């Protein structure tokens, strides 16, 4: 073998299949110290699977892994950690019942003395504060119970967990998917610092701007094969997309403008738990309204309150000028409202049920025949239709949701709500974890919904998508709506100003 | 009877006797309770009868004894679920202690009133043998293994059956449960459909066995133990061949009566045999009437 001292890590001919599904068909990858190496591929291309093999979470079927030139056998996550590999997994891997600092040090607790001694809670707290500080987070966070945090902050804790680790390689599987602009910026700075220290980073992302900004080299995966590894700075993102989806993409935001109709949806004096004052806004037919804001701005809370997901709520909601009484999600669904929740695992999916079950769950009524039995065939056909429409892969309705890739899971959640034929769609971070190609599909879907007379509201922390797809932008800060901008007046600066209050 | 407060009839100055039984969840122990209560009424004693939910609740019984002692009764009547277990707590008692139904090696006990379970089982075995021919096949249905009362009965029955030259082809547990006994008997008959007699360590199981036998239309003599109302009725109907009654009512009655005697400083016999009654068709009517009067 050739001299490998140059590479920190080399993976050669990695193969992996689940049952009949051949996911990785011989992947090569090499990572050099101090570089940011990006993995890019469609949803279900096998990116997460590849890194799970690297971290010892999965066992490879074939292939070799070399660490600093020496072959290694990674059987368990501990093996990888010992080598100096820290991982931020795509799906949150935290213990909701434990405190933030305990999560940060999980598996590598600091102790007072030798191996058998007591834990040093104080030292862990201090060190946790330092790591959270690197991400611009308040030190008060360390003693919070993790489950009480919003999903974005949980993600930050995951990142802090990797930072607290004296790693040579940090794997980040879509770390920014649940963060808003400010935290993302902090993370970028962090990555640059790490790079300077000679730490290598394997970075997975569907956000091309961020790849362009951070990446040194990029490896494109498609259909279980490695297509190409190339330098980031000298290649064109459109070329990456072409390699990754097998064709070129005409436009990233297929914005369509429709004639503005009358007001279709209105929220008045809604008291959201934890918000300082009642909230109100309205949406007209023919427009897509975006809600922007930082993590924890209260957007999700607002959506949940509208949907009747949280108890005790005052205020009025009108659809087509008629007030609807909403006390529970059932009421909301009956009134024609759909909420595509942001946390797909916690609030969206039945992981152990099949895709057709998941997709039709919120609209089972529709499939009840006169005999009151469910039309199983109808369910399967409806599910197949959505799987095709949203390009969910693998396109096997019998598959359990658990076994889908993150992005495909997200698509299943969207399908579930499309299936309800609602009138008002509230999307909470709908494109989180979805690849560039599929994003366009989701945007097209929104267009279609608006065209067919639905109300569409999109909560998003992705400013480009807000700016690219919406007709009007509401900005939230600390539970209040601080700006209501027509798209013509909405600029990145104005939105950020309203969001931060600066 | 289900009330516990009936004993508190008279005015103050009454002696109080606490009775702690193995359980109160079965007819057998209800008869003991009835006997104790009757004695209390007749003799003007305040009688408290308590017992855990099940005979297997051994520690719960110990706790009950402690809690009763804590309320300083005049005397204590105990029927220990596991004989040895009550010794430490009862040794500390400063009041007269009488054991009923089941004896224990207790130095300071005033008396033991009852019949050994072994003897009851032996009588049952004898009764069964008398209905069969030498060399006939018999089966034994035991209680939950480790239940000392049913285990002793089984030992006694086995001894008598073997002495009489019976062939024991099966010995299986049915946890003192009627339904389980029925299933067990069905399965035994599957293999040995020429079984001529069955000894069951309590009446509930005997009745379950009987059901299985009847369903097959076989002529099998079934003997139970305890002498419950249901069993006696079955004997009168010509179904159950017999049962061995240990006279629980008398145990309860004598227990309280002698407890009062001990409180008053009178002499009490160390050993009072309450006897066993072999109940067959001949004397079942009499027994039935007696049981009906005591269980109202």
């Amino acid at each position: 073998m050739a001299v490998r001292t140059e590479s920190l890590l080399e993976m050669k001919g990695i193969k992996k299949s689940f049952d009949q599904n051949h996911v990785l068909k011989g992947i090569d990858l090499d990572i050099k110290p101090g570089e940011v190496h990006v993995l890019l591929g469609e949803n279900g291309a096998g990116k997460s699977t590849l890194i799970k093999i690297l971290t010892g979470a999965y066992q490879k079927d074939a292939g070799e892994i070399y660490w600093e030139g020496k072959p290694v056998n990674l059987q368990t996550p501990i093996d990888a950690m010992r080598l100096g590999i820290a991982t931020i997994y795509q799906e949150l891997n935290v213990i909701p019942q434990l405190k933030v600092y305990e999560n940060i040090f999980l598996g590598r607790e600091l102790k007072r003395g030798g191996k058998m001694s007591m834990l040093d809670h104080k030292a862990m707290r201090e060190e946790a504060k330092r790591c959270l500080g690197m991400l611009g987070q308040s030190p008060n966070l360390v003693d919070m119970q993790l489950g009480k945090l919003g999903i974005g902050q949980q993600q930050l804790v995951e990142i802090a967990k990797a930072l607290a680790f004296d790693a040579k390689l940090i794997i980040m599987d879509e770390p920014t998917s649940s963060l808003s602009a400010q935290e993302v910026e902090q993370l970028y700075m962090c990555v640059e610092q790490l790079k300077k220290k000679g730490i290598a980073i394997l970075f997975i992302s569907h956000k091309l701007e961020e790849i362009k900004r951070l990446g040194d080299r990029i490896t494109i995966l498609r259909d279980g094969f490695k297509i190409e590894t190339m330098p980031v700075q000298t290649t064109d993102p459109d070329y990456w997309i072409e390699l990754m989806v097998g064709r070129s993409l005409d436009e990233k935001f297929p914005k369509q403008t429709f004639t503005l109709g009358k007001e279709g949806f209105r929220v008045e004096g809604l008291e959201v738990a934890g918000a300082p004052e009642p909230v109100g806004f309205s949406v007209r037919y023919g427009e897509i309204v975006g809600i922007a804001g930082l993590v924890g701005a209260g957007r999700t809370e607002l959506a949940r309150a509208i949907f009747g997901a949280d108890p005790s709520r005052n205020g009025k909601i009108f659809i087509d000028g008629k007030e609807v009484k909403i006390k529970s999600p059932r009421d909301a669904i009956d009134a024609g409202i759909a909420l595509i929740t942001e946390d797909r695992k916690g609030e969206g999916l039945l992981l152990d049920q099949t895709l057709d079950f998941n997709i039709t769950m919120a609209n089972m009524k529709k499939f009840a025949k006169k005999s009151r039995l469910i039309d199983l065939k109808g369910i399967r056909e409806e599910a197949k239709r959505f799987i095709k429409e949203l390009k969910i892969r693998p396109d096997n309705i019998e598959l359990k949701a658990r076994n889908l890739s993150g992005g495909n899971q997200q698509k299943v959640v969207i399908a579930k709500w499309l299936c309800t034929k609602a009138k008002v769609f509230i999307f909470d971070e709908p494109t989180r974890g979805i690849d560039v190609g599929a994003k366009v599909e989701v945007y097209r879907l929104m267009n279609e919904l608006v065209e067919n007379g639905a109300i569409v509201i999109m909560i998003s922390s992705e400013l480009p998508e807000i700016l690219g797809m919406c007709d009007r932008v509401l900005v939230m800060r600390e539970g209040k709506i601080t700006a209501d901008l027509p798209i013509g007046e909405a600029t990145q600066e104005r939105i950020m100003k309203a969001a931060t209050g600066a | 009877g289900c009330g516990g407060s009936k004993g508190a009839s008279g005015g103050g100055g009454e002696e109080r006797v606490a009775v702690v039984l193995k359980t109160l969840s079965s007819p057998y122990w209800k008869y003991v309770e009835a006997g104790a209560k009757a004695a209390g009424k007749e003799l003007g004693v305040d009688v408290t009868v308590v017992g855990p939910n099940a005979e297997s609740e051994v520690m719960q019984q110990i706790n009950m004894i402690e809690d009763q002692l804590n309320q300083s009764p005049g005397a204590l009547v105990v029927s220990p679920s596991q004989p040895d277990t009550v010794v430490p707590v009862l040794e500390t008692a400063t009041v007269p202690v009488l054991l009923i139904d089941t004896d224990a090696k207790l130095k300071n006990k005033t008396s033991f009133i009852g019949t050994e379970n072994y003897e009851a089982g032996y009588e049952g075995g004898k009764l069964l043998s008398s209905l069969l021919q030498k060399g006939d096949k018999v089966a034994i249905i035991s209680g939950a293994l480790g239940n000392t009362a049913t285990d002793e009965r089984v030992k006694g029955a086995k001894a008598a059956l073997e002495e009489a030259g019976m062939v024991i082809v099966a010995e299986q547990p049915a946890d003192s449960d009627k339904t389980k006994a029925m299933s067990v008997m069905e399965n035994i008959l599957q293999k040995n459909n020429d079984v001529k007699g069955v000894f069951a360590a309590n009446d509930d199981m005997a009745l379950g066995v009987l059901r299985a036998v009847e369903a097959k239309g076989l002529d099998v003599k079934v003997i139970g133990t305890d002498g419950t109302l249901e069993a006696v009725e079955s004997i009168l109907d010509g179904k159950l061949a017999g049962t061995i009654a240990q006279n629980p009512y008398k145990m309860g009655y004598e227990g309280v009566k002698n407890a009062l005697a001990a409180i008053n400083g009178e002499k009490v016999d160390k050993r009072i045999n309450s006897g066993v009654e072999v109940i067959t068709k001949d004397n079942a009517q009499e027994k039935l009437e007696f049981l009906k009067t005591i269980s109202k």
Partner: protein
Amino acid sequence: MSQVVVKTKNEVMNGTLKRVLSKFGPLIGLILLIMVLTVLSPKFLTVNNVMNIARQSSINALLAIGMLLPILTAGIDLSVGSLLALSIMMMGIVTVNMGMSPFLGILVCLAVGAGFGWLNGILLTKLRLPHPFISTLGTMNIARGIALIVTGAAPIAGFPYAIQFLGREFVGPIPVSFLLVIVVYVIFHIFLTRTQTGRYIYAIGGNPEAARLSGINVDRVLIIVYTISGLMAGLAGLVMVGRVNSAFPLAGLSYELDAIAAVIIGGASFMGGVGTVWGTLIGALIIAVLRNGLNLLNVPADFQMTVIGTVIIAAVFVDVLRQRKSKKA
């Protein structure tokens, strides 16, 4: 490896077979057990004995299918044994002691079971007790207490034929109670796979929050679940009374354990959302076959418990092995 493989007919067949096997997973454990017992005892595989097993399994089978529902919702119902006892005692009081119509008695029996089951559901959902373990442990004690109180622990015998029918009669060689089990299981299968409420039960067990946000009235479904479980306890009681022609307050003591064991051996998960009607039937049969075999072989009482324990572990382990293999393949 990297080329696209055309599936041969053989492979497709294999796939179907695998799917069937994985659906009827614990079946292998049952078949193994039957094979062993057939070798050990010539009496085992006779029509007569098979019918015996069918009959003996029926009470537990009815309790187990009721228990499947709470377990599918990640819950449990500890009260079924006690509810069985209370149901039959009330039926005894109505029909034997008060001499009323047997059909009224049957109605009372089922209504008492269902009513207490409903109470379990209410306690869980409206009082928001943290786990059905607590609420059903509570009602387990309450119902047993009442069963003991109503007749002062005395049993009730001499039920009318109409009540005994289910537990006692045969159609040809087949016990009516087992036919009842089959009918009930078919109904449950349809209920769980083909009705809205049935599917909601799986949804709630899989992810209660997602279920709620999908517009499912979780409380309503849970109340239905526990009511049905109670109803099945009443029905099991009816069969038991038919079998032994008497009702006694300690009936069904600790039967919940056998019912839970049947459901879990049948492949259901305590974490909810996973489990099938047929698996449960096989679980109940495994337990009945085992008990029957021990009796046939006249295994000494003290060894029986040890054998039962070992077989429970082994039966489940066989299934685990099978799954591990099929995953590797």
